[in-house]
């Protein structure tokens, strides 16, 4: 044991799961039991950006997020969607259990979308911010990660699969596969499971 300690001290070996025991209040349950069981702390990391990589609109992102958003909006907390890829269809969102009066969407593009996302994250008054930002590069992602931390806001950024190879500074990276399966590419404070997790829904 002492040898292990000295190895850790000399930075030759380090603990991957040193801060895996995040307190439960630093995460938000996803509403999908299978996903909660593998994510560090048991849910979406609060005050951080979770990145969703997908093939395009309708890859299961709504099925993935709706349980969370339904719970947040039911608690009368505002949720903002920024530059969504298409118009949200209210009937379906209400059908998924969301309180529509707490949902807002921003119809902007380009740099304005990045600006708006950062503003919403920093303001610290949104329960969650979901942004579709194919234009965001690693620098922009880092800015958003900092903004989410300073505003203590839960953030989701959706980007195309083409960004897969780029390094990303976010806390959690998920790739959406067909038939409602998610692959965890990176999760800070825990091991990324090799297996895909089925959360249901999507195509």
């Amino acid at each position, binding site marked *: 044991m002492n040898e292990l300690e000295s190895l850790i001290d000399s930075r030759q070996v380090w603990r991957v799961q040193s801060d895996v025991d995040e307190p439960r209040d630093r995460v938000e349950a996803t509403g999908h039991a299978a996903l909660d069981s593998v994510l560090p702390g048991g849910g979406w990391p609060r005050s951080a950006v979770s990145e969703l990589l997908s093939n395009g609109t*309708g890859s299961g992102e709504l099925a993935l997020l709706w349980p969370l958003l339904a719970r947040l909006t039911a608690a009368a907390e505002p949720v903002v969607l920024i530059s969504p890829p298409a118009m949200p*269809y*209210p009937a*379906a969102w209400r*059908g998924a259990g969301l309180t529509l009066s707490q949902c*807002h*969407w921003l119809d*902007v593009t380009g740099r*304005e979308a990045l600006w708006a996302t950062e503003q919403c994250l920093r303001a610290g008054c*949104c329960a969650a911010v979901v942004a579709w930002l194919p234009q965001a590069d690693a620098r922009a992602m880092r800015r958003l990660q900092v903004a989410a931390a300073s505003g203590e806001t839960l953030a989701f950024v959706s980007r195309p699969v083409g960004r897969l190879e780029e390094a990303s500074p976010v806390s959690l990276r998920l790739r959406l596969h067909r038939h409602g399966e998610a692959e965890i590419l990176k999760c800070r404070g825990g091991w990324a499971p090799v297996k895909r997790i089925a959360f249901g829904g999507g195509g």
Partner: protein
Amino acid sequence: MRWICLLFPRLALEGALRRRADPEAPFALTDGPPQRQIIRAANAAARTRGVRPGQALGFAEALFMAPLSKAPEAAPGRFRVPVAAPGRFKAPEAAPEKGAGFESSQRLETAAYESALVERWRHRLAAWAYGYSAQVSLHYPHALVFEVASGFSLFGPWPNLEARLRRELDELGFSHRLVIAPNPAAARVLVNAHDGMAVDDAGLESALGALRLERAGLAREEVETLKRSGFRYLGELFALPRSALARRFGASVMRHLGELRGEWPLALDLYRPSTRFSRRFEFDRPVHAVASLAFPLKRLLQELGLFLIGQDAGVERFRLTLELEDRSPQYVDIGLLRVQRDPDTLLTLTRAHLERVRLEGPVMALELGAEQVSDYTPLRRELLDGPARQAQAWTELHQRLVARLGASALKPLIEHREHRPEAAVLAAAGPRAGETLERRRRPGWLVAEPQRCEAEITRLLAGPERIESGWWDGDDVRRDYYLAEWHDGRHAWVWRQPGQPGLYLHGWFG
């Protein structure tokens, strides 16, 4: 009604001192034609050396050339403060000679008295007072009157408010006298003789009665007439029957006494704050380094902060104009992430901005301008916490987004009682849907313009579902909707018009 009158006995001098890097150094304001300038006012350091108003400038300057031993005693060390820059109006022959017994670093700095400058300061102080009252008037010269009764609930009882006003004026560097009285005319005359007096309706007449006629705000010839008749105090006039008073001394005396006692209404022109801010600072000699801008910048930002408090507003962007010696001005635009008004915060942010700026030439003057103020809500976490703060922060965010992106960019999610999907998402399309949920499966996303798509579809999974509506507004729709599988496995919502070929993509199931 309770009116405060603030009298500023040394407004011109203190206003000029605020612009100086070292207000403790001997300084005087001069007045009169260039050949025969006289001292109009002098600060404490100059007065300890014997400078008095009314002296000729040459005489005052000569006082600083005399050996120190003959000068009146003053606090040791006070004269040793080095003077930052030579005054622009200083006569060259007044330069002190170096030698034993002479204080070589000490000289009298002077500036010309400018009535426009005094007027500017009066307006700035009015802007400050506007933070306490909506009824502020500059009706009386050298003084400021404002009504505060309506502010007592906000600022607390009078002693608290008085202490606060005095503290703020001391911080600004303005000596003052103040009196609170039931009407502005009474407050103005009482401040001639008192400082810190608080008079209510019951005590007003006796307080006024004890005033000497010279200090009662009457015209000089009126005072002469009254004195010739043997009157010395206002109270003696109050004791006279009014008809006799009017007959002997005329309507204007009657009117003035009526105003003092609050019987005649006094129509004051009220101060209206301007909504844009602009202040200049001129340097005595050109400035070459950004670091030298720090002092004037701090002063300008303090004034901006005062202006903003008076407006109950903040700034989101402002501009620094650096006037250069030999070319067109250089601009530094400063935009903030959130609306601010605290001068220290503004200074920190502005300094951070200036660090990246390279001066294009020697700077002659610095101007700070804010074209527009924004609504400001201070973030006080200890006062507002939980839902209230959340709601306030949300309002603030909402405003900021709308300000930059336009009102139409931020859309609510409203469900309308409408079967045509494209119409159901439009804002204000019609009546809101009731509580009944749409039971058939609907896609989370709607594509703005349906597109022909049968080449991309591998199979139809469910349908058709007929949607037929809108015949009444001429935009009738008759479509069969299907749930379809896209070639990459995603689920799409597509339609075809009955009896016609072609599938159109209309939505995605997320």
